[in-house]
């Protein structure tokens, strides 16, 4: 009886230890390392938006393009989500908290035959995604990070958040979504980076 008890204790301690290891390694995609800070990545000068003139648009393969002002965007139902993010430059950050409008909310009632989107931004940045990857609570137009308005260096006033793909898809300074019938490679996707960018399959470059 005592032996059995000791054996059980040993097993359960061992099991717990292993589970903890698996839990953290299973949250880190292959080739990534964990950071606690939030590195700033930038392909150009930081645009300073005038919120009185700022709009968010859905255009392209849509009968009536949609457009929201900054005030209208803030008035839409919002989500607060906590997600792990993974940058293709190999850092990952766990439990980042964002507030924003789900892209599904913006696409409500939209009829389109498009299967792809190009996300466009102040400063000229673009990134391409399959439409289904920004539907159903998989993507947000985020305007708060950690309970604060999103800082311009992290993409404020608003950035796309698509946490299940490499973070270059989470375009900073986002201004809209163009619905498209064909896939048009974006800023990085047209110059060596993977068209889709799944961190769990390590889709960093062309040919991965």
């Amino acid at each position: 009886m005592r032996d059995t008890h000791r054996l059980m204790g040993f097993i359960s301690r061992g099991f717990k230890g292993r589970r903890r290891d698996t839990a953290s390694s299973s949250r880190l995609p292959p080739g990534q390392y964990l950071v606690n800070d939030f590195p700033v990545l930038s392909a150009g000068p930081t645009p300073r938006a005038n919120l009185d003139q700022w709009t968010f648009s859905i255009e392209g393969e849509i009968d009536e393009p949609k457009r929201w002002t900054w005030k209208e965007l803030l008035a839409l139902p919002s989500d607060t989500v906590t997600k792990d993010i993974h940058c293709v430059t190999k850092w990952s950050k766990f439990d980042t908290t964002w507030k924003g409008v789900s892209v599904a909310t913006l696409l409500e009632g939209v009829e389109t035959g498009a299967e792809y989107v190009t996300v466009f931004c102040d400063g000229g940045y673009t990134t391409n995604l399959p439409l289904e990857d920004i539907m159903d609570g998989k993507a947000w137009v985020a305007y708060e990070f950690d309970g604060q308005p999103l800082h311009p260096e992290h993409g404020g006033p608003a950035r796309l958040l698509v946490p299940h793909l490499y973070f270059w898809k989470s375009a900073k300074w986002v201004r809209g979504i163009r619905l498209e019938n064909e896939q048009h490679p974006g800023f990085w996707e047209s110059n060596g980076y993977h068209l889709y960018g799944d961190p769990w399959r390590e889709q960093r470059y062309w040919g991965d």
Partner: protein
Amino acid sequence: MQTSEMKLDGNAIAGLLGEIFAVEMTSAQGTCASCGAVNEVGRVDVYIHAPGTVVRCPDCEQVLMRIVRGRGRYWLDLTGVRCLELAED
């Protein structure tokens, strides 16, 4: 990090360009395809804290070059440079 700290000049990519080109590149003259300004490569705006290196025209901020290195390859987009004038060695 301040925005000003993120912008470097063309000398920051002397090593990277040296891996790709056989001639000295920082003294090469590049013509911007957007605004026509001619700038020495050593004097252009360079952003390296990004998935790749982005080189921009100091006059109009348009992209001159994008350089991505990975998997033992380089991808080099020069569509923003209408002409590159290089000195013979």
